């Protein structure tokens, strides 16, 4: 189990990670979901022991990674956001070097390298220099490096950004397989669909703070909506927001020039009562759609913003 306790880290005046606590339970895939700049990478770097927290601590199976770094790091596999491989070495060179850092050698190392390469579909490019690889191939190689020593804990930082759907499927498949084998996974992403599909539980992070942690069901329930109404029309200004807010049973998630989002409480008057009230409020309404609550609406209800920039 990875226990993250009250991590905090600032860069100058900017508090990148602020009092972050959560735990990754044995065998689960925990998604750390947040927009650009939320503090995901900073958090992950502190968990993996490369960035010193200003305060707080990280326990891996009860051991503090900053107190016993080499012991703990043996059990961690880390796949960074930026691909960090030696371009002038071959894929096999990179993997062999990486494995040797974990004490692998000889035929065992060779077997692991071969196994890893075929797992991520790079077996036929093993002898090519990484320089000649596409972005997706480099990412798969990086994933392979993180798995080579069969870590008990796998930390991934947005491993599917900027690659084609095929490679993405491959990566997600590999991660599922690893998790099924008992590895505990912390998966960082800003893709809601990925978090929804892949993760057992999801922690939402924004502006360096964890807003909530739970399963998809728990999160949507926690957000409290039965239904989300997306309105198209003119809703700019505080007055429009006030008028919407005045409708019974409605919480305004967001109101702007082109659109507004309302959450309609489950036990309240219901959608059928809300719509006439909107029309009666005198606001320009062009279109209405009903959304099942999902991570998007959870995020909006927590932050008042959409997840996508």
């Amino acid at each position, binding site marked *: 189990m990875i226990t993250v306790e009250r991590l905090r880290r600032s860069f100058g005046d900017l508090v990148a990670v602020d009092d972050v606590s959560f735990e990754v339970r044995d065998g689960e895939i925990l998604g750390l979901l947040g927009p650009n700049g939320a503090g995901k990478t900073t958090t992950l*770097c502190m968990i*993996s*022991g*490369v*960035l*010193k927290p200003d305060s707080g601590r990280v326990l891996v199976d009860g051991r503090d990674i900053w107190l016993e*770094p*080499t*012991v703990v*790091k*043996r059990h*961690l596999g*880390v796949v*960074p956001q*930026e*691909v*960090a*491989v*030696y371009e*002038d*070495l*071959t894929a096999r*060179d990179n993997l062999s*070097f*990486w494995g*040797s*850092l*974990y004490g692998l050698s000889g035929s065992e190392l060779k077997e692991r390298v071969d196994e890893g390469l075929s797992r991520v579909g790079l077996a036929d490019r093993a002898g090519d*220099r990484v320089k000649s690889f596409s972005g997706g191939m480099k990412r798969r190689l990086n994933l392979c*490096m993180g798995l080579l020593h069969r870590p008990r804990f796998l930390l991934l930082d947005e491993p599917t950004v900027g690659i084609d759907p095929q490679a993405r499927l491959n990566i997600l498949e590999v991660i599922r397989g690893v998790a099924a084998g008992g590895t505990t996974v912390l998966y960082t992403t800003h893709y809601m669909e990925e978090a929804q599909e892949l993760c057992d539980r999801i922690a939402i992070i924004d502006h360096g703070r964890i807003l909530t942690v739970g399963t998809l069901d728990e999160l949507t329930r926690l957000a409290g909506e039965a239904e989300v109404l997306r309105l198209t029309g003119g809703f700019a200004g505080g007055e429009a927001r006030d008028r919407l807010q005045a409708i019974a049973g409605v919480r305004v998630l967001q109101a702007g020039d082109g659109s507004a989002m309302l959450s309609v409480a489950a036990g309240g008057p219901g959608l059928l009562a809300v719509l006439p009230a909107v029309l009666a409020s005198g606001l320009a309404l062009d279109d209405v759609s009903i959304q099942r609550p999902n991570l998007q609406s959870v995020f909006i209800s927590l932050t008042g913003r959409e997840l996508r920039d």
Partner: protein
Amino acid sequence: MAAFQILRRDLLRYLRNPGRTALLFAIPLMMAAIFAVVFGGHGDGDGITIRVLLWDEDDSLLGRLLQGAGDRPESEGRLEVVPVGPEGVEMMNRGDASALVHLPKGFTRAVIDGTPTAIEVVKNPAQRFLPLVVEEGVVLGATVLSAGSRALRPELDVISSFLDADHRPEDAAVASLSASFNRRAKQFDLYLFPPVVRLEAVDVGAAKGEEASAKKPQGIAAVLSVFLPGFAILGVLFLAQSATRDMLHDRETGVVRQLLTAPVTPASYLVGKCLSVLVVSAAGLGLLVAAGVAAGVAWGPPLAVAAVVVAAAVAASGTLLLVMSVVGSERQGDALATIVIMSWCMLGGAFVPLAQMPAFLHPIARTTLVYWATSAFSSLIAGGGIADILPNLAVLAGGGALGIAIGAAVMGRRLARGAL
């Protein structure tokens, strides 16, 4: 141990990139070879005599430096600088010298003011190589003056006052000059272009058949013995630059960050990188020395030479590690390293033997590790033994070790802070 894995991987990278590696090693060899060819075909056993006519209408700094170089007892038989007036042109037409260097009136003023001016070099067309040497030397001087006129104006004034005074300048004055020079040196690349001082090369008359000062040919080995030590040091510095720059590359590409997620401590990463810088530097220098042996250079007692190779590799590693530890990016590192290497090589006597440099530069030369390395090789070549170069070995190893320690400590602090 992780340090050795890192060393192994770095060496593997040299093997996987044979082209780049060959180029790294070839550049200093080629430079030394060009010098050998330039000088090698001519001159007698005692060295090469270049006769230069100096027509200095301006009584300029460059003129005085040139004149001073020719006047030194050590230049006896190598460089002869003859002050002339307008009659120098006529002397050139008679083929009296390898080249005529003409510094026009107002030259110094123009350099100090940063206004364009020109040095005229009239080459003897009957000689193939020696005039080129003069031209190269003047190009170097012109480049330095160009940069200096913009970057070093206050220091130039101080140098000028040293030259005017008839007593030896105070040590403190020299030290402060060298400190302020070092400060300025950082800005050099900004100032090199466009040049303030242009070079105008003119050939006179028609070819006069055989070279006027034709002497019996001399082996390349003797010439290499003069120049290879300096170029070998230049070469090892460039190798160390390339090897240490790798650390910045690692940092910028996130490789360090990823390495530290493995059970690798910052200390073992630094030890591994320092080892590989040392090994590459020592191997490179060893190779350059071996190339010299192949060309017939008698370096001296093998053990003593090996000691210099190792000590110079330590010195080069320490110097470059220190340079790379203070910069923010790979590009900055490259710029600063090149400036440090070139100015140290110029000041330390890697290009021009110290004996031919003006006396006031000698104390400055001694502050450079280049001087201690080059002179160690030279004194072994001149027949010295290991006892003669003990101070050199001590300075090189001590200075280098200090550089490595400070450089690694600074980088280590950065790693520990997570400034990756």
